[in-house]
């Protein structure tokens, strides 16, 4: 055969493939094509009688020759003539090399083969598939009978050990994250190699060739065999396509190949899923079928050979766990299959596995697979079953093992049918390395790990089961179009109600699923220094337990997503957010331990600065005041006290670069803050934040952050004039109203985007803080607004202790921590309504 002819025939084969030739036929035809070539080349060689045979081994031996796979050929000989051998070898191998095919070639005698096979397991199994292409049939049959005698007869257990050992090694190597996202069609768990391992094992241990023979011998059920055939066909087809797309031997379905393959297999993007996601779902589905079948089969063989099961952690003595369910050789066995009639039996088998940490025996697993029809509506609605299920996912000793078995037997999908939509579902990005179903299992496993790592947080939770269920369900809305958290929450509600969870628990579950991305989004995209934001988060989440659950769920979710989704960087941001919200929810007035230390340190330092005498008579200063200033500043403030007359107002402005700080020391009186705000407005100064500290002796220290509404610099500001006016205003010697009203018109900023404005709003919150009512005011910004708001509050006899003003696109959000002078918190709803109306009135004015 000419070089050109071989190329042409290979090209013709590719055309046939494009026209829809099925995968296995392609392998067959390709193999026959190479056979032809070999036969021709061999015929052209000098005749050597019975001394030579051309033998196909490995995949080529099985007539499964992929487009760019190695062509493994053994030149088997019984000759001494090296020159003749060399001549034959070149005649046979060169044509293959010439067209650039990869050839795995060897020249061996039968004796060589046996010696090499002893050393090299892969060569040994490749001999199992040996096939005579041309040449001496006698020589070939000598080889096969020697292989039979030396490697099969009497050595079955050793062969099986090798199969298991190599499979374990392979799964470790190809079980890495990168192979999840980009499965290796040949070597990954559930790849073609797993099918091969089953077939070799069947051949060597039971003398059975092929899946049908295995089914007839009862090693496979009809369903399993059909599933395997389908998976096999599909994996072959995919591997052929990968070869053709790459134009070389590559068996890994790389990310960048996936989309093109989806296109060429006719998967379009019409549905809720991308075409490539539907393709990958099929790929993962088939590999899962193969993996499960291989696990079950190999375990069965291990039993037949009396091989001890792989240790699963705790070695425990055989015992009866409950009637009909036993622990045998470290595995859970349903000893009385008649018990399956009782609907809860399957659930109890899993419970036994969860409690003992043992795996479930493969025969029992098969029984579960074939009895899934028993999982009916009654079981789905049984509260008792639900409690068992929750115990399984929350308390399993070996969570991954139990959860995988729940899934692989199909029980999980039968018990929570809503999960079928995410079975084998993949997401086309480099971020999510697991399919959604596995991701959900791993999230639960990560929650188990977090319970070890962060026991303090778990201790704050009254009930962990809802958290673990949320871990299992949080992405259940995937594959249903946009907004998976929202649709997931709706499904979670249905599931929670069906399981008979308490109303409160279902509400919590729904909340967790709906908002499982809330914390990560805020942590990475919003300003965590923004107190208003933190405050909103706290209100949104509501209580500390939910916050803890949301935080843990976010960590577990990210860690179960893939190596890129979680790192120290994200962890630090998320932790910061968690702690900030936790402090708001917990109780802002109780000092954290480090703050308590801070207060003591401050008092000590102040005492030192003042000297032994004065230090003893320190006035009792409020904690929040002490934590807001340096010891030197406090001493500085105190130095003014002796001379501070009732009328005096001391101001200390300071340039801070992008803003100015303004410290005001005076004696407390009603409406003080509003007069300060009014005077600031009069001098075209706007306020960002204000903290008001009142000492027990009636001294007030106000710390403000301000800026000019003009571009004017700090030096240009008339601080003296401001100080004068402030004293007059505080002592009620000037009318702020009429002065501001004269000043306002030219200062009012025209709003640029009236369409995006949100109507003014006033929100009362008595939950967030223990001692204070929090009032939030949303309004369009204008000079003097803060004066009017604070004056209104003062008119109601309301004392403001902190204010924070943030401006965003012409809207301000003011947060006031206030107390009613008579009653503390403002709890009276009528009064709240009255204040709200009054505030809205002055805002609109």
């Amino acid at each position, binding site marked *: 055969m000419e070089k050109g002819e071989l190329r042409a025939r290979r090209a013709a084969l590719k055309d046939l493939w494009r026209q829809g030739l099925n995968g296995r036929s392609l392998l067959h035809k390709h193999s026959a094509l190479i056979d032809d070539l070999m036969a021709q080349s061999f015929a052209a060689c000098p005749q050597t009688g019975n001394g030579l045979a051309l033998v196909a081994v490995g995949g080529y031996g099985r007539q499964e020759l992929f487009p760019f796979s190695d062509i493994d050929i053994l030149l088997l000989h019984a000759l001494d003539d090296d020159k003749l051998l060399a001549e034959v070898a070149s005649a046979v191998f060169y044509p293959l090399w010439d067209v650039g095919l990869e050839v795995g070639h060897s020249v061996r005698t039968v004796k060589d083969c046996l010696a090499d096979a002893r050393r090299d397991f892969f060569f040994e199994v490749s001999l199992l598939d040996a096939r005579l292409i041309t040449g001496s049939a006698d020589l070939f049959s000598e080889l096969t009978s020697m292989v039979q005698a030396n490697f099969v007869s009497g050595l079955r257990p050793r062969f099986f050990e090798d199969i298991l050992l190599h499979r374990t090694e392979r799964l470790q190597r190809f079980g890495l994250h990168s192979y999840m996202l980009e499965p290796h069609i040949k070597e990954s768990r559930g790849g073609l190699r797993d099918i091969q391992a089953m077939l070799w094992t069947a051949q060597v241990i039971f003398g059975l060739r092929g899946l049908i023979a295995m089914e007839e011998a009862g090693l496979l059920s009809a369903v399993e065999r059909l599933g395997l055939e389908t998976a096999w066909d599909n994996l072959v087809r995919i591997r052929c396509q990968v070869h053709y797309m790459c134009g070389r031997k590559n068996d890994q379905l790389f990310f960048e190949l996936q989309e093109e393959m989806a296109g060429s297999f006719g998967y379009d993007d019409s549905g809720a899923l991308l075409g490539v996601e539907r393709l990958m779902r099929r790929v993962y589905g088939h590999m899962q079928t193969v993996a499960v079948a291989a696990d079950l089969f190999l375990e069965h063989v291990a039993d037949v050979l009396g091989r001890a099961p792989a240790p699963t952690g705790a070695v425990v003595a055989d015992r009866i766990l409950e009637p009909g369910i036993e622990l045998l050789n470290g595995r859970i066995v349903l000893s009385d299959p008649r018990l399956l009639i009782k609907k809860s039996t399957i659930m109890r088998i899993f419970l036994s596995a969860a409690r003992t940490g043992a795996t479930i025996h493969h025969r029992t697993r098969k029984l579960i697979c074939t009895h899934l029809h028993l999982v009916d509506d009654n079981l789905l609605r049984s509260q008792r079953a639900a409690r068992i299920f929750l115990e399984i996912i929350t308390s399993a000793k070996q969570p991954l093992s139990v959860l995988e078995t729940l899934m692989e037997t199909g029980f999980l999908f039968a018990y929570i049918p809503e999960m079928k939509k995410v079975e084998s579902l993949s997401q086309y990005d480099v971020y999510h390395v697991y399919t959604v179903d596995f991701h959900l299992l791993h999230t639960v496993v990560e929650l188990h790990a977090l319970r070890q790592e*962060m026991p*303090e*947080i778990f*201790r*704050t939770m009254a009930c962990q089961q809802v958290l673990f269920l949320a871990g299992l369900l949080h992405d259940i809305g995937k594959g249903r179009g946009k907004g998976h958290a929202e649709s997931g929450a709706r499904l979670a509600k249905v599931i929670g109600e069906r399981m008979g969870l308490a109303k409160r628990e279902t509400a919590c579950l729904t909340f967790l699923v709906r908002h499982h991305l809330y914390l990560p989004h805020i942590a*990475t*995209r*919003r*300003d*965590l*220094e923004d107190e208003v934001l933190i405050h909103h988060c706290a209100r949104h989440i509501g209580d500390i337990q939910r916050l803890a659950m949301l935080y843990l769920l976010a960590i577990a979710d990210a860690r179960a997503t893939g190596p890129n989704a979680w*790192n*120290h*960087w*994200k962890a*630090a*941001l998320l*932790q*910061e957010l968690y*702690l900030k919200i*936790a*402090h708001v929810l917990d109780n802002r007035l109780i000092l*954290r*331990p*480090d703050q308590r230390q801070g207060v003591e340190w401050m008092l000590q330092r102040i005492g030192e600065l003042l000297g032994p005498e004065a230090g003893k008579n320190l006035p009792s200063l409020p904690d929040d005041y002490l934590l807001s200033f340096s010891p030197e500043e406090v001493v500085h403030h105190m130095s003014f006290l002796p001379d501070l007359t009732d009328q005096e107002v001391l101001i200390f402005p300071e340039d801070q670069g*992008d*803003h100015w700080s303004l410290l005001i020391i005076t004696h407390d009186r009603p409406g003080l803050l509003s007069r300060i705000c009014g005077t600031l407005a009069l001098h075209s100064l706007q306020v960002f934040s204000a903290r008001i500290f009142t000492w027990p002796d009636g001294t007030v220290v106000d710390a403000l952050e301000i800026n000019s509404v003009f571009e004017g610099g700090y030096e240009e500001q008339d601080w003296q004039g401001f100080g004068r006016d402030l004293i007059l205003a505080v002592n009620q010697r000037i009318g702020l109203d009429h002065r501001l009203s004269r000043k306002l018109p030219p200062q009012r900023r025209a709003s640029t985007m009236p369409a995006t404005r949100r109507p003014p709003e006033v929100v009362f919150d008595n939950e967030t803080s223990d001692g204070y009512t929090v009032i939030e005011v949303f309004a369009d910004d204008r000079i003097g607004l803060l004066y009017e708001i604070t004056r209104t509050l003062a008119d109601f006899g309301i004392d403001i202790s902190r204010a924070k003003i943030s401006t965003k696109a012409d809207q301000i959000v003011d947060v006031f921590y206030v107390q009613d002078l008579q009653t503390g918190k403002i709890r009276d709803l009528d009064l709240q309504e009255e204040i709200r109306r009054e505030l809205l009135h002055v805002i609109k004015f």
Partner: protein
Amino acid sequence: MKKIEAIIKPFKLEDVKEALNEIGIKGMTITEVKGYGRQKGHKEIYRGAEYTVDFIPKMKLEIIVESSMVEAVVGKILAAAKTGMIGDGKIFVLPVEQVIRVRTGEKGNEAI
């Protein structure tokens, strides 16, 4: 040609990206980084658990521009990344000797 490296607060990334888009900056490299400057890490004990933050998460941007663009780019980053609070970050401008586009081998401004 200059390389502009900016350390900014993570949540400011989108704003900065948008602002740079406005003046035609189409490419940048971003990295999640941690570090400290004036804004230090801290330790906190909450409910019996100790939480330490040694380094504070920031975002690092790297942009290569023609020298004439430096001022505009720096100006945009300054305006977009500023919150006025501690820890707003820093901008570094470094000289760049050569830029080569791998695909075509183009060099200099062509390759930016």
